[in-house]
C-alpha cells in the first residue's frame, strides 16, 4: 500500500520530483494513445476499463504528488521550488531553460487543477461508456492535463506558451471529439481559430518582451522590470490580454465557448469551466508585475471584464439549452475574474477562479447527468420536476446553484464574488476617478442577472411538472455511481470552498489571501481606507441583490409561470436581440470571416494555383520544348552532318592525345 510517508522520504530533495506532476499525465496520454492505435489496427484488443484506469490513474497520481508537494511547500511559502529540467534553447546570448517553478500561485493552481481533473476523469469513465473513441478520449484528456500543468508550472513565458498552445490544441481535439457530425468539427475549428487569433496577441507580447528585456523568464523579468516604460508595458500587457481574451472567452473573442458545448459534457466541465479558460486569468496574474506598470491596461481589462459579465449574463437569460446557459454563465463569471485582476486585486481573481472551478464543474457534471438521464435531451423547456426522479444529481446541482448565486451567506462563491466587488469599488483608479463605482454597479447587476438565470434554470429543470416527451420519461434513470458521486462531492466542496478566503473584515482568517499576498503584494494597489470598513455592508448588499434575483425568478417561473411569458412580451424587441445573442456571430461572419475567406480564395486561386502552379508549369514546359527543339537539330538524318561529328570527334581526340 503506498502510504504518504513513503512519499515523504522521496521528497527529501523536494523540488527534484516536480517533473512527476507534469510527466504522469503525459505518460498516460502516450500510453492510451498507443493502445488506441494498436487496438484500432486490430493488433491488440484493449478493454475499455484499461483506458479509464490509465487515464484516471495518471490524473489521480498527479493529484497525489501535487498535494504532497504543496503541503510541504506550504510550510515555507516564500521560497519557490525550482526544478531545472533541461536547456531548451541556447543561441548566443539567448537562453531559455525549461524549468518548473512551484510558488504560491502555481502551487494552488496545480492542486486545484489536478483535483478537478481527477474527479472529471472518474466521471468520464461513466459518461463515455460505450463510446467508440473511449481510449482516444482519455488520451486527449490526459494530454490536456499535461499541457495545463506545464502552463501553470512554467517559469518561462515560452514554456508557458507551449502549454498555452497545448491546451488550445487539446480543446480542439476534445470539442470536435464526435467529429463525424460536421457541426462538432466546426465548433472545434471555431475554438482553435479564435484561440489562435488571441495567440497572435500573445506572440506580439512575447516579441516585445524579448525586444526590451532579452529574456522570457519570469524571475528575470521581475528583476529587470525597469526596462519597461509605461507605454511599452501598456502595449505588452494589452497584447497578452488579447491572448487571454481568446483563451478565457472575453469580449471580443468569446464566441467559441457557447459552440464548444458540442463536445462531451465532462470536457466542458474540465476545459471550459475549470482549467483552460482560467489560463487567461492565470497569465494576467503571473504577469502582475507588468500590469502594475500599466494602469491603462489594467483599467481596460477591468472594463472588458465587467462588460463581458453583463453581456453574457444577459444572453444567458433567454437561452434554452442547459449547457448553453452554463456556457454563458462561465463567460460571465470569467468576466468577474478579469474584473478582479483588472483592479489589480489578483488574490480575489484567483479566489474566484478556484471557487468558480468547483461549482461550475459541479454544475456541468450534474447537467451531464441530467442529459444522460433524459437520454440526450438538452432543452430545458422539455424538462421539469426532475428533483423527484434523479435526487442525487439534483441535489448536487442545487449545491452548485447555491454556490454560484451566493444566496446563502458564507457558502459557495459568496466570499469570492463579494471580494471582487468590494475591491472593484475600493481600489481607486488613476485614470477614471469615477470608474470604481461604475464597475461595482455593473458587477452588482451581473450578480443579479446570474442569480436570476440560474434560478430560472433550476426551476425549469428540477421543479414543477415534467414537460418533455413521454418515452423519454419512461427511461429516466439516475446515473451510475461513478458519475453521481463526483457530482455530489464537487457540490459539497463547492459549498465550503469559499471558506479558504473568509475576509478579515468579518473576523475570518483569509488563508488564501494571506498565502498569495507576498507574491502579489507589490502589484496590488492599495484600497481606499474608507471602503475597507464598508466591506460588511457591501457583503450584505450583494446578498440582498442575490436574494432579489432568486426571488424574482422564483416568482416569474415558479409561482406564476404566466408572468414569464408576459415578461418576454414586455421585453419585446430586446428579447429578439438577446435571442440572437446580440448577433455577434453574424457580425463576425459578415465582416471578418468573409474578408478572410475572400483573401484566402484570392491567394489560393489566383496566386498559388494561377500564378505559381499554372504559369510556372506552362513556362517550364515551353522552355523544355524549345530546348528540345533546338537539341533535335543534331539528329536530322543527314549523313554529312554525322561525318562532321566524326571529324570533330577525331580532331578532339587527337588534340587530347597530343597534349
Amino acid at each position, binding site marked *: 500500500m503506498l502510504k504518504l510517508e513513503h512519499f515523504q522520504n522521496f521528497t527529501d530533495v523536494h523540488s527534484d520530483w516536480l517533473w512527476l506532476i507534469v510527466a504522469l499525465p503525459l505518460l498516460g496520454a502516450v500510453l492510451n494513445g498507443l493502445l488506441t492505435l494498436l487496438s484500432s489496427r486490430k493488433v491488440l484488443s484493449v478493454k475499455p476499463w484499461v483506458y479509464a484506469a490509465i487515464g484516471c490513474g495518471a490524473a489521480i497520481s498527479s493529484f497525489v504528488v501535487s498535494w504532497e508537494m504543496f503541503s510541504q511547500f506550504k510550510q515555507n511559502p516564500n521560497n519557490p521550488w525550482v526544478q531545472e529540467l533541461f536547456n531548451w534553447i541556447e543561441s548566443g546570448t539567448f537562453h531559455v531553460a525549461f524549468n518548473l517553478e512551484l510558488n504560491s500561485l502555481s502551487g494552488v493552481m496545480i492542486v486545484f487543477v489536478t483535483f478537478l481533473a481527477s474527479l472529471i476523469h472518474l466521471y468520464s469513465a461513466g459518461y463515455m461508456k460505450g463510446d467508440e473513441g473511449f481510449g482516444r478520449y482519455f488520451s486527449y484528456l490526459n494530454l490536456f492535463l499535461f499541457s495545463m500543468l506545464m502552463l501553470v508550472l512554467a517559469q518561462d513565458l515560452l514554456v508557458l506558451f507551449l502549454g498555452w498552445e497545448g491546451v488550445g490544441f487539446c480543446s480542439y481535439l476534445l470539442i470536435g471529439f464526435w467529429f463525424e457530425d460536421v457541426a462538432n468539427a466546426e465548433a472545434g475549428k471555431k475554438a482553435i481559430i479564435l484561440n489562435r487569433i488571441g495567440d497572435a496577441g500573445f506572440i506580439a507580447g512575447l516579441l516585445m518582451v524579448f525586444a526590451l528585456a532579452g529574456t522570457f523568464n519570469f524571475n528575470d523579468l521581475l528583476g529587470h522590470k525597469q526596462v519597461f516604460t509605461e507605454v511599452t508595458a501598456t502595449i505588452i500587457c494589452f497584447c497578452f490580454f488579447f491572448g487571454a481574451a481568446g483563451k478565457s472567452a472575453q469580449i471580443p473573442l468569446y464566441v467559441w465557448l457557447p459552440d464548444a458545448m458540442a463536445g462531451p459534457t465532462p470536457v466542458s466541465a474540465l476545459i471550459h469551466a475549470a482549467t483552460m479558460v482560467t489560463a487567461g486569468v492565470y497569465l494576467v496574474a503571473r504577469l502582475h508585475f507588468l500590469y502594475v506598470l500599466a494602469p491603462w491596461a489594467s483599467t481596460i481589462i477591468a472594463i472588458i471584464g465587467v462588460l463581458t459579465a453583463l453581456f453574457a449574463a444577459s444572453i444567458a437569460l433567454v437561452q434554452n439549452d442547459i449547457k448553453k446557459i452554463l456556457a454563458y454563465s462561465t463567460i460571465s463569471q470569467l468576466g468577474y475574474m478579469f474584473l478582479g485582476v483588472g483592479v489589480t486585486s489578483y488574490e480575489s481573481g484567483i479566489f474566484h477562479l478556484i471557487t468558480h472551478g468547483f461549482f461550475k464543474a459541479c454544475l456541468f457534471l450534474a447537467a451531464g447527468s441530467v442529459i444522460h438521464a433524459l437520454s440526450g435531451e438538452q432543452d430545458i423547456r422539455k424538462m421539469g420536476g426532475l428533483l423527484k426522479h434523479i435526487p442525487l444529481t439534483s441535489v448536487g446541482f442545487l449545491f452548485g446553484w447555491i454556490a454560484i448565486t451566493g444566496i446563502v451567506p458564507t457558502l459557495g462563491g459568496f466570499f469570492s464574488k463579494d471580494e471582487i466587488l468590494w475591491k472593484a469599488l475600493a481600489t481607486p483608479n488613476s485614470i477614471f476617478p469615477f470608474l470604481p463605482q461604475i464597475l461595482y454597479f455593473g458587477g452588482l447587476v451581473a450578480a443579479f442577472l446570474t442569480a436570476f438565470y440560474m434560478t430560472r434554470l433550476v426551476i425549469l429543470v428540477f421543479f414543477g411538472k415534467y414537460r418533455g416527451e413521454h418515452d423519454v420519461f419512461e427511461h429516466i434513470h439516475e446515473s451510475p455511481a461513478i458519475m453521481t458521486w463526483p457530482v455530489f462531492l464537487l457540490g459539497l466542496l463547492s459549498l465550503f470552498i469559499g471558506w479558504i478566503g473568509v475576509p478579515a473584515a468579518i473576523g475570518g482568517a483569509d488563508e488564501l489571501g494571506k498565502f498569495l499576498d507576498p507574491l502579489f503584494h507589490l502589484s496590488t494597489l492599495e484600497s481606499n481606507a474608507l471602503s475597507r470598513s464598508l466591506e460588511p455592508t457591501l457583503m450584505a448588499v450583494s446578498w440582498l441583490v442575490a436574494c432579489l434575483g432568486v426571488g424574482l425568478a422564483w416568482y416569474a417561473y415558479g409561482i406564476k409561470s404566466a408572468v414569464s411569458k408576459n415578461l418576454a412580451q414586455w421585453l419585446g424587441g430586446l428579447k429578439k436581440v438577446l435571442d440572437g445573442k446580440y448577433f455577434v456571430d453574424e457580425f463576425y461572419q459578415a465582416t471578418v470571416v468573409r474578408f478572410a475567406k475572400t483573401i484566402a480564395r484570392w491567394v489560393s486561386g489566383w496566386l498559388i494555383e494561377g500564378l505559381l502552379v499554372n504559369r510556372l508549369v506552362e513556362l517550364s514546359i515551353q522552355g523544355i520544348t524549345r530546348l528540345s527543339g533546338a537539341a533535335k537539330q543534331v539528329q536530322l538524318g543527314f549523313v554529312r552532318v554525322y561525318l562532321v561529328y566524326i*571529324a*570533330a570527334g577525331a*580532331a578532339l581526340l*587527337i*588534340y587530347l592525345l*597530343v597534349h
Partner: protein
Amino acid sequence: MLEAFVFYILAAALVIFGLLMITRTNPISGAMTMVGAFGALAGLYATLTASFVSIIQILVYAGGIMVLVIFVIMLLNMHPDDLEPMKARPFWVVVALLAVSTTILAPILCCVLPNKDFTWAALMPGFGTLTAVGEKIFSDFIFPFEVLSLILLTAVIGALIMAKRKL
C-alpha cells in the same frame, strides 16, 4: 636547290589538284583531277626515295581505283541536271576549310612541327626498292600480308553481293 624546286612544284600541284577536286560538280572532273593529284603524289614519293611506292601509287591508285570509280560513275549514267543540286557551295567549302585549318591545321603547323626536328637518316643502299620492300614484308609482316589477301577476297565477294540485281 633543284630539290626544293621540284618539291614545291609537285606540292603546289598536289594542293591545287586537291582543292580543285573538292569543288567539282561533275564527278568525272573530280576523278580526273584526282588522277592528276595522284600523279603529283607519285612524284613526291620519288623524291622521298620511295621508288616502289610511287610506282604502286600510279599502278594501283590512279590506274586501278580511279578507273573503277570512273566505271561506276559511267554506270550510273547521271544527267547533268541531276548533278545540279549537288554542286559545291563555295561558302560552305570555305567555311569547312577555315574550320579545319583552325582546329587541326593551325595547331599542327604552328605548335607541333616547329618543335620537332626531324632529319633525314642515312639510308641503306637498297632503300625503297622492290627488293627491300619484299624483304620487309616476308619477314616482319608476313601475317598481315596473308590477312590482307583474305580482306581483298572478302571485299570482292562483298562488292559482288552488294551490287547484284537480285540476291
